[in-house]
């Protein structure tokens, strides 16, 4: 049984998912951050694989990617870092990367490594859905890995329904048409009408809202419309490399307490 599906069976509201970039601020921060997060009220962890050209990301994540790569992060190291925690891992882990990383590493090799190290799902924002269906869906099933798809306020209803059937684990609702970390008017008209539209659609898959969640208020708001929210840039900004654990505890406390 996939851990993400398992999670939503147990809990279907106020799911808190935290995104961070592996290898940032320091190369060995990955395991420290995961360990700290899973002892806090965090339900899902999304680990970003640093990339040289993160097209969908704003400056905060671009910067963490750059530093992580400078620190020497690479895929083999990342998989071995996650694998170290496999037996102690309670919270499902999702990895997020760009398609070229999966492609160049070798898709099968990549998925096998995910499986071996205890990863439960993937987010690959530039992987076309049709290519996924034709080329990878069976492989994902074989390794019981979830592939998570995104929808945005510009996605029309029929495509939202289509993607909600292909996505596995949950559907990722991107709160606004933007790159990550942009200050969005989270309570704006466009956002609310998008969330309302989604609420009315017959979607059985759980939904998490991401992009623009940065504090208790925005997280609570996302919980009104979806099963929970994903926080990335704001969390990364809060990390204090001199006292990682404390900064993480403080941040999570500021969101759910």
């Amino acid at each position, binding site marked *: 049984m996939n851990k993400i599906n398992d999670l939503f069976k147990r809990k279907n509201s106020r799911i808190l998912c935290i995104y961070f970039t592996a290898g940032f601020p320091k190369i060995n921060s990955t395991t420290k951050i995961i360990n700290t997060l899973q002892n806090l009220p965090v339900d899902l962890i999304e680990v970003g694989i640093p990339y040289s050209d993160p*097209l969908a990301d704003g400056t905060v994540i671009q910067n963490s990617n750059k530093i992580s790569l400078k620190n020497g992060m690479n*895929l083999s190291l990342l998989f071995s870092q996650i694998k170290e925690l496999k037996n102690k891992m309670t919270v499902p882990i999702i990895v997020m990367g760009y398609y*070229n990383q999966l*492609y160049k590493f070798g898709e099968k090799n990549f998925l096998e490594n995910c499986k071996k190290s205890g990863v439960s799902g993937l987010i690959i924002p530039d992987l076309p859905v049709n290519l996924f269906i034709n080329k990878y869906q069976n492989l994902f099933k074989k390794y019981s890995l979830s592939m998570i798809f995104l929808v945005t306020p510009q996605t029309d209803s029929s495509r939202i329904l289509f993607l909600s059937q292909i996505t596995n684990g949950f559907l990722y609702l991107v709160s606004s048409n933007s*790159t990550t970390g942009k200050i969005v008017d989270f309570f704006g008209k466009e956002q609310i009408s998008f969330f309302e539209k989604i609420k009315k659609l017959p979607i059985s898959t759980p939904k998490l809202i991401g992009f623009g969640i940065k504090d208790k208020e925005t997280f609570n708001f996302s919980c009104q419309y979806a099963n929970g929210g994903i926080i990335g840039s704001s969390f990364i900004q809060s990390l204090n490399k001199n006292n990682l654990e404390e900064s993480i505890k403080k941040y999570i406390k500021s969101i759910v307490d």
Partner: protein
Amino acid sequence: MKNKFFVDDNGYYGEFGGSFIPEMLYNNIKELQKNYKNFIRSVQFQTLYKKILKNYVGRPTPLFFCKKYSKKYKTKIFFKREDLNYTGSHKINNAIGQSLLAKQLNKKTIIAETGAGQHGVATATVCALMDLKCVIFMGETDINRQYTNVLRMKSLGAKVIPVCSGDKTLKDAVNEAIRYWINHPESYYLIGSTVGPHPYPQMVADIQSVISEEIKIQLKEMYGSCYPNYVIACIGGGSNAAGSFYHFLDNDSVNLIAVEAAGHGIKTKKTAASIHCGSKGILHGSMTFLLQNEDGQVIPAYSISPGLDYPGIGPMFANLFIKKRVKFLYSTDKEALREGYELIRSEGIIPALESAHALASLKKISFKKEDTVVVILSGRGDKDINVYEKFLTKNLSYDE
């Protein structure tokens, strides 16, 4: 027009191309995929496009028979003078074509990336002409080395946004333009070469095909035959090469030569030769050849010519390479400089450093006496005059 080397109905050139974009750009790309072909091929577009090219850009550009080079290389050498286009390069063809599409789609803001600044200047010019708002992304490294073009863009009313990510060159300018497009989906992204997600590569090739259309007519007038034996073009993303190969692709008697920028050499790390030194993967939304490490991290390119300083190549050319329809050569910084300078002194033509890479390949090909060889001078070198000057000073001090 059907051609086995053009994009198929799924957006692919063999195993290359496609559209690898985040969901945020899905509608934008769909809109282009749905509309571009009918529009670009419509009589309405073609008439208007050709009229602007003639009266505003000054096309057709001459096909210049070069006596001295013909004698030197013991063959018949012609230069296709894209440098004589208004704004100084072939980039203006694409800027006009795509901005007509943008107008048709009712867009008010144009965004574009630029390396050498040639595409940026062309876009800023057309935006002034057509009353469109213009935002140009340019890497800081390129801003410093092509500053006169920055001044031109600014005076034309464009907003020039310096890009400080990555190694601050063309690749990073494309990244930043795409990010801006994600955040401003109402704008039109006027990409400058045959790169990017489908339909950009084919659309830009279609628009630039006017180059080979003219070559055919011009050769026919002079010799009675439309077909040269060689067409030689430099290649960054591939737009001047695509335009000048376009109408010759299905005639195997025409040797098509694309010349990559090798920077310090293809055995060094400082190179931009994606076919010679790259491997298969995804860059800027399409499957192609790119410079990357085993983890799929993109390796920054290097070339003295900012327009070729790009770690990828258009997907159409990745396929033309695999199918062996186009032969790929390379020229180093030094070779390009030397041959560029040679042209200046021999013919009074100052070529762009990009175009000088094509010239530098002439020495590496053995032509027959009766061959007709067309070399594409994709742009003029006023922007590079400081680099030529430095080269001259250095070499004179060697010689004397």
